[in-house]
Every structure is written in structure tokens, then in C-alpha cells.
């Protein structure tokens, strides 16, 4: 299948403006004749649903949570990037574009990334107008801080709860449209399949999570804003309910899945404490502004945070500052994570498990005073103390990398449309802007860029030609899709095996973390593929799902999601096997520089790997979208 990225012609800086002009418009009076389904209410979904409704479209918005405000965008802590250059430190749209392309290790599309940088400034304006209480200076102007992979301060923030405040801004805009009747909200409702009519997306099948009722919803276009699939690793910083089901079902209906193996392992998370662990908690990257990362120069097994305080300076290795003097502790996430793994593999890890490094604030507290640290990071320090039981004002934090974000996702063109006409994917759900590694504070930027400022323009171009007619939910396409969904649920309920859904999910997670995690080899991937197949087979023979469909049923919900993770996992392995280079967060041990950095092989792998589903049990077809770089020169990334 040939993939057309539909990137407009012309100079980089003019593409988006020209494209907006060339896109067809829908007359304001005609917009009300179109129905659009938006699945998900995070930054992408809520901002899209609100903006589309403001334009006059009829929107149906779905979320599995009890309220749209609970989508996991809410948990983003540190901030949102924008090229405002309020700090007069040399920032510009071009620099944000460049940093993002470089940070993504040259595996993203230039035109998309430039557009992202371009609309970033409007996002901040929009959020301020909504009443988002960003941090301010005493003069009343907005404050900024720095994030990894950048040498300017361009990150806007609201204490350690930026995601919460941005999401509540989008939620308030969405709520306004719900109140006006322009958005019909379906909470506690999960999308279980995509429906296609005449080769186009025509609706979705959902399950009401309270009553179990399977329902059909028809529309002129379907927008997936369903987030990432980090929970394939079982332990991640994602919410417990975050899942791949909507995206995966769309994939099985024909949407290409791009770069599935590109996973972001975040360097600063609270380490795993035991088998009982259900999820991992992130400590914001913003902490790396003032915290210094170190391990002892010589291995000290079981070194506690309390004892670390007494360790003299000359016995400490501030390894990021040593190896990367110009970026220091603010190297990009993939680099920081891999370095943490390296020092722990050398036996210099700390804490009872040896799988942790220190993040130390003592210098910052001495320099700025405790009050300044409380002001900047108070809630994060409290959160840490709550979970870990240590007081980070007195002893260093212990951190370790954890799965956080997935750069891969549904393949989309410049219009954010998948290869299925009428099916769009926005936010983390798509693959488009972050290449092989996302920079900190860029996820919020992308979610809101897609929802507020990109999709509302591009979707009109499709709808203008698509006509007002909607497929009937009584049509064979809907009835068949409902039948497939019901049969799968019946099957899950009838197995009545011996192991719980979590038993399988944990098993899968261990395979993924050990073999498809921070370092990947030909052998580890081969092994993973076999093991995943075995777990999947065992799942369908031996899983125990209790209760019935016609009630609230948490174990059924989980089973449905884990069944899809078990399929996606294998595609992640295929993708990682295919890409024999290292790039960004995808580290193939076979491809590294002498200094142990990720070594790209541009001649062979400068493409987006978009996978096409071929049916149950069959290997997928790899479609390549070559990446064309007209504006940046591909170099070995260096943060030294």
C-alpha cells in the first residue's frame, strides 16, 4: 500500500498557511448537518470535541471514565512548550521545530513538526483566555522553565499540575458545549469496534460500562483521541484504564499502525517496590532543572538515601553532568534513561533493589532556599514522600526509568487522517510528531495543537466532499460489527479458566520490559515473540472472567483490553526486529556508537514503518513512508 503523507508543497514556513487556504470549507449553516464522533476526552479529545462543536458540528464524545475530566492527560505534571520567546533567550518557531526534530532523532515528519511549533503560541493564548492559572512572575507576566533537550526556557507550567490545568481548561470548553447541547457526552462508555461503510469510517460500536449494553453510533467522521498503549508493559505511568483497544480495532479494520515499537521510557519515576505494584508514578522532568542525578563512583550495594547524604562529594558520580557537560541533567529522556540503566547494570545502582539512582536537591536547597523549592515542586515532593516514605527535602530521591509514553500510533497524513477515509487520530493516539523520542512538555503541546488548531481545519476538507448522508445503524456493517463484539465478550466469559486477567497482563509486561524495553537485541526480540504467542494462547484457554456482560464488570473490561495488548505486543516486537538501527528510545544493542549512544542508520531506516493488518494469525505487511528532510541536516545527535 502506498502511503501519501499529503504534505503540501512549498517552503516549510508557508506550508500550513497555504494548506489552510487550499482546504475546502464547510458553510456554517451546513456544519450542523454533520455528526462527528470523538473518542476520548483528554487534551486531544476534549479540545477537538469543544472546537468542532463551537464551529457548529454535532459531536458525540465518548470516554470510559465517569467524567471527561479524568482522562489521563490530567496527570501530566511539568509543563507545555511554546515558542513565545518571552524570556528573550533566543527561542523561535524554528528552534522549537529543530529541537523537536532532533530530539525525535530524525524520525518524524518535518512539516508536521513545524506546524506543531507554529501553533504552539496560540495554545498558550487560548489556555490563558480560558482561565488556566499558569505560573506568573511578580510583574504579572507568565513564567517559564526549562525541559530536557532544550537550551532555552520555553516551558509554561501551573505548579506541578500543568496537565490538570490544561485538561480542565479543555474540559470547561467541552462542558460549555455539552451545556449548549452541541456535544452529546457518553461517559462510562468504551469503544469496542470501528464500523466501515463503503470503505469509509462510518461509526463505532460501544459498550455501556454500567449496563453492558452494546450500542451502535453512526457519524460522518470518527476521531480517535484514545491515548497511548504504554500499559502493554503492565507497569507504566499510564492510568490503570489506559488501553489500546480503540486504536487496535481500527488497525484491524485497515488503519496502518506506525512505529509501534517507539516507546518512551521516562527517566524519573519512583522505583518498583515489589510484586504487588500496580503502576508506576512519574516524578516530573522539571525536577531535573534543580535536581542533580548521581550514583556512587564505586558500587555500594543497598546504599540508602539516608546514608547517601553522608557520602563525600568525591565519591559521587554525577554521570550526566560528566558525560554531557552542555546539557547536563537536562539531556533528553531517552539518553537519561539509558544512562541510568547503564550505571545500574554496572552494579552502581542504589537502594534495596539496586535498580535506582539518586536525584538530589541539596545543592538547590542550599542555593535557593527550601521555600523556593516548596513553591516550585512542593506537590511532587509530597507525592514522593507519600509513596516512598522518605523526605526528599532531607535525603535524595531515588528514581528509575519507567514506561511513560508511546511515540508510535496510528499512521496519519498531514491532515491527521489515517489511511481509512473519515478516520482521524489525534494526540498520543497517532504517531506523527515525536519521531523516536518525545521531548518533555511536548505531549501537552501536541494534544492541544491537534484538537484546537489542526483537526478543526483539516476535517472540513474531508466533510465538504463526503456528503451529509450517514450510514444507518441498522445496516449490515453495524449489525455484523455488533455481532463480532458480542461474540468476543461471550467467549471471554465462557472460558472460565484458572488465571486472572492480571496474571496474564503481568506476565506479558515482564516479557515486554525485559526483552522490548530500554535495550533490545535480535535474540531478546526473537524470544519475546515466542513468549507473547504462548501467553496469548494460554490467555484464550485459561483466563477467568467472572460475572456477566449485563452489569458493571471490571474483570470483563480488563479482559477485553488485555486481549488487544496481547496482539499489539507482537507487532511491537516485529517493528523492533525490523528496525535494526538504534534511534531515540529504540535502542538496538547491535547499533551503537563507541560511546554507547544510539546509532542511526539513515540510509536504511529513514522511514516511518507503517504496518498493515492481514487477518488473524498472519504476519503484517510493512508499508514505508520515506522521511524527506529538506530543512534540517541529519547528524548524530549530540548533547555533550
Amino acid at each position, binding site marked *: 500500500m502506498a502511503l501519501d503523507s499529503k504534505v503540501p508543497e512549498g517552503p516549510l514556513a508557508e506550508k500550513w498557511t497555504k494548506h489552510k487556504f487550499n482546504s475546502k470549507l464547510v458553510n456554517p449553516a451546513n456544519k450542523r448537518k454533520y455528526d462527528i464522533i470523538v473518542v476520548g476526552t483528554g487534551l486531544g479529545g476534549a479540545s477537538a470535541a469543544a472546537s468542532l462543536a463551537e464551529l457548529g458540528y454535532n459531536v458525540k464524545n465518548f470516554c470510559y471514565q465517569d467524567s471527561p475530566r479524568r482522562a*489521563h492527560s490530567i496527570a501530566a505534571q511539568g509543563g507545555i512548550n511554546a515558542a513565545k520567546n518571552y524570556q528573550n533567550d533566543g527561542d523561535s518557531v524554528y528552534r522549537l521545530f529543530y529541537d523537536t526534530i532532533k530530539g525525535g532523532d530524525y524520525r518524524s515528519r518535518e512539516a508536521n513538526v513545524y506546524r506543531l511549533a507554529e501553533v504552539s503560541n496560540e495554545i498558550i*493564548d487560548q489556555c490563558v483566555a*480560558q*482561565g*488556566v492559572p499558569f505560573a506568573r512572575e511578580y510583574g*504579572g507576566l507568565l513564567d517559564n522553565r526549562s525541559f530536557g533537550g532544550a537550551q532555552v526556557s520555553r516551558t509554561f507550567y501551573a505548579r506541578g499540575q500543568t496537565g490538570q490545568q490544561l485538561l480542565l481548561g479543555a474540559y470547561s470548553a467541552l462542558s460549555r458545549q455539552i451545556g449548549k447541547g452541541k456535544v452529546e457526552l457518553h461517559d462510562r462508555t468504551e469503544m469496542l469496534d470501528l464500523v466501515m461503510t463503503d470503505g469509509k469510517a462510518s461509526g463505532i460500536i460501544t459498550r455501556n460500562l454500567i449496563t453492558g449494553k452494546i450500542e451502535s453510533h453512526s457519524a460522518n467522521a470518527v476521531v480517535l483521541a484514545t491515548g497511548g498503549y504504554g500499559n502493554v508493559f503492565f507497569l507504566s505511568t499510564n492510568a*490503570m484504564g489506559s488501553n489500546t483497544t480503540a486504536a487496535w480495532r481500527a488497525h484491524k479494520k485497515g488503519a496502518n499502525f506506525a512505529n509501534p515499537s517507539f516507546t518512551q521510557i521516562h527517566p524519573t519515576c519512583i522505583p518498583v517496590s515489589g510484586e*504487588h505494584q500496580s503502576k508506576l508514578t512519574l516524578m516530573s522532568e522539571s525536577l531535573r532543572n534543580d535536581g542533580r542525578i548521581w550514583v556512587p563512583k564505586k558500587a555500594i550495594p543497598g546504599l540508602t538515601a539516608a546514608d547517601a547524604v553522608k557520602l563525600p562529594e568525591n565519591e559521587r558520580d554525577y554521570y550526566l553532568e560528566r558525560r554531557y557537560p552542555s546539557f547536563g541533567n537536562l539531556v533528553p529522556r531517552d539518553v537519561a534513561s539509558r544512562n541510568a540503566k547503564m550505571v545500574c547494570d554496572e552494579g552502581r545502582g542504589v537502594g534495596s533493589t539496586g535498580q535506582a539512582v539518586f536525584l538530589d536537591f541539596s545543592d538547590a536547597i542550599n542555593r535557593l532556599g527550601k521555600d523556593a523549592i516548596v513553591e516550585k515542586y512542593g506537590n511532587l515532593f*509530597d507525592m514522593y514522600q507519600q509513596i516512598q516514605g522518605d523526605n526528599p527535602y532531607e535525603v535524595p530521591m531515588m528514581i528509575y526509568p519507567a514506561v511513560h509514553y508511546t511515540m508510535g500510533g496510528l499512521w496519519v497524513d498531514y491532515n491527521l487522517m489515517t489511511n481509512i477515509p473519515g478516520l482521524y487520530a489525534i494526540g498520543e493516539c497517532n504517531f506523527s510528531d515525536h519521531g523516536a523520542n518525545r521531548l518533555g512538555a511536548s505531549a501537552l503541546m501536541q494534544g492541544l495543537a491537534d484538537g484546537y488548531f489542526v483537526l478543526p481545519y483539516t476535517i472540513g476538507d474531508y466533510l465538504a466532499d463526503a456528503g451529509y448522508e450517514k450510514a444507518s445503524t441498522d445496516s449490515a456493517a453495524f449489525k455484523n460489527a455488533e455481532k463480532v463484539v458480542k461474540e468476543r465478550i461471550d467467549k471471554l466469559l465462557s472460558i472460565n479458566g484458572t488465571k486472572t486477567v492480571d496474571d496474564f497482563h503481568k506476565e506479558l509486561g515482564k516479557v515486554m520490559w525485559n526483552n522490548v524495553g530500554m535495550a533490545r537485541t535480535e535474540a531478546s526480540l526473537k524470544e519475546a515473540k515466542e513468549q507473547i504467542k504462548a501467553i496469548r494462547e494460554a490467555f484464550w484457554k485459561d483466563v477467568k472472567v467472572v460475572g456477566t456482560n449485563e452489569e458493571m464488570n471490571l474483570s470483563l473490561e480488563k479482559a477485553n483490553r488485555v486481549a488487544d495488548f496481547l496482539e499489539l505486543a507482537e507487532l511491537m516486537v516485529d517493528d523492533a526486529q525490523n528496525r535494526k538501527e538504534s534511534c531515540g528510545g529504540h535502542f538496538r544493542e547491535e547499533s551503537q556508537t563507541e560511546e554507547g549512544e544510539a546509532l542511526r542508520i539513515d540510509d536504511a531506516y529513514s522511514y516511518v514503518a507503517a504496518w498493515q493488518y492481514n487477518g488473524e494469525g498472519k504476519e503484517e505487511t510493512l508499508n514505508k513512508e520515506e522521511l524527506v528532510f529538506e530543512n534540517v541536516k541529519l547528524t548524530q545527535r549530540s548533547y555533550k
Partner: protein
Amino acid sequence: MNHKLNIWRQKNANDKGKFYTYEVSGVSPDQSFLEMIDELNDDLTRKGEDPVHFDHDCREGICGACSMVINGHAHGPKGLITTCQLHMRSFSDGEEITIEPWRAKPFPVIKDLVVDRTPMDRIIQAGGYVSVNTGGTPDANAIPIAKHLADTAMDAAQCIGCGACVATCKNASAMLFTAAKISQLAVLPQGNAERANRAEKMIAVMEEEGFGGCTNTGACEVECPKGISLEHIARAHREYMSAKFSSHNV
């Protein structure tokens, strides 16, 4: 550690519901409270019994989904945290633990510990926003906002919408929740244009949804996991009164 758990079980909204007792053993003090329930649920599932249903999602204290009354306290015995942030080290070995859903008339039980909190969304839909469409907004630095006002707005905006205030209030009032939003937007210049209407509409819907009135007991502030202050209720009352005296709607 070993614990005896008394958990409220209720099949659905029409079921009467009652406490069931479960014994859990080998609990680690490093385990979170919800992870302790996860293990109980895995055991129940293996035995073919229905697991205990409860709302939860982010498990880091910010989404506002988790909602349990533990030994009589919303979100458990410790202050300023949500249920998902509570760890078993906060309990002593052998301690008996009673777990109930939020209990308030506007929050009917859906199943076990899961309740319907959509009335809170409807309060926001009534006016908890600034009426700006996407696009065409002024530059973010066009209107300077004094730091102390931005900080006050942020203090209020931290509300996670969990409903602990309602569950704790003897009147099942949603005043702390409603006031936090009224207050956030009242102190910011962006919210100024609609402040009178907003206060009137949100409080009207709060009453329509069956939440009780505020009698300034202050229990909500004590149990609020985000420490939202009663000052915001005072400000919301002022907003409401001044709206009533100056209403354009009369």
C-alpha cells in the same frame, strides 16, 4: 500484615446492599491501599466470586476517580491525599478496616463502591467556564495578572472533582467543589465578564441536582485531598450575593 476488611457490597442501584467481611493476609506496608484491594480481587476472581468494584484510574492522586470512605473518613485516615495515595504503612497490623462508598443523595451507588458523580459535571456545564471559542484570543501576556491572584486562582483550580467534600458534608453540599470553580474564575480578569451569571447559574444547578446548602461546618475543607480552603466558599458567597443584588437576569 493481616487485616479484616468490612466492605460495602451492592450489586446495583436497586440492590439494598450490605457489608461483607474479608480477611487479607501477607499485606506489605509498601503496598498501596488499592493494591491491597487488587490482591483481594484477584483472590475473589480465582474463587469465581465477583470482585469488589471501585473507581480508580491514574493512581497518583490527580484524576479524582478513587472514592472510598475508609474507617469513616473520605480517602482514609491521612490528610491531603486521595485513596490511591494511601499506603498500608498507615495502618497497624491486625487493624480492622471498614470501606464504604461516598454516601450522598445526589451520588447514587452504581455498584459496590462506585457511585454516580455526574451531577458535578452538570454544575460545571452550567457555567464553570469562560465563554471563549477556540482561536482569536489575545496574546497570553497582554493582560498581566498579579502573582498573588494567579496563585489564589491556582489554589482553587487544584480541585480534582472527587466529591469527598460532598461525601463528608452532613448536608451533602457541593459548595466547596462549586465555590472552587467560581472563585478561580472570579479572581482572574478572564473570568470577570461572566462572574455574576456564573455564580448564579452554578449554585442554582447545584441545588437542582439535590445537593444541600452550605452551613459552614468546614468538614469539607478537612477532608479535601487538595486542601481547598473555605475562603473560596466565602468568596463564592460574595459572588452570589453581589450577583443577586446586581443581576441582569431579574
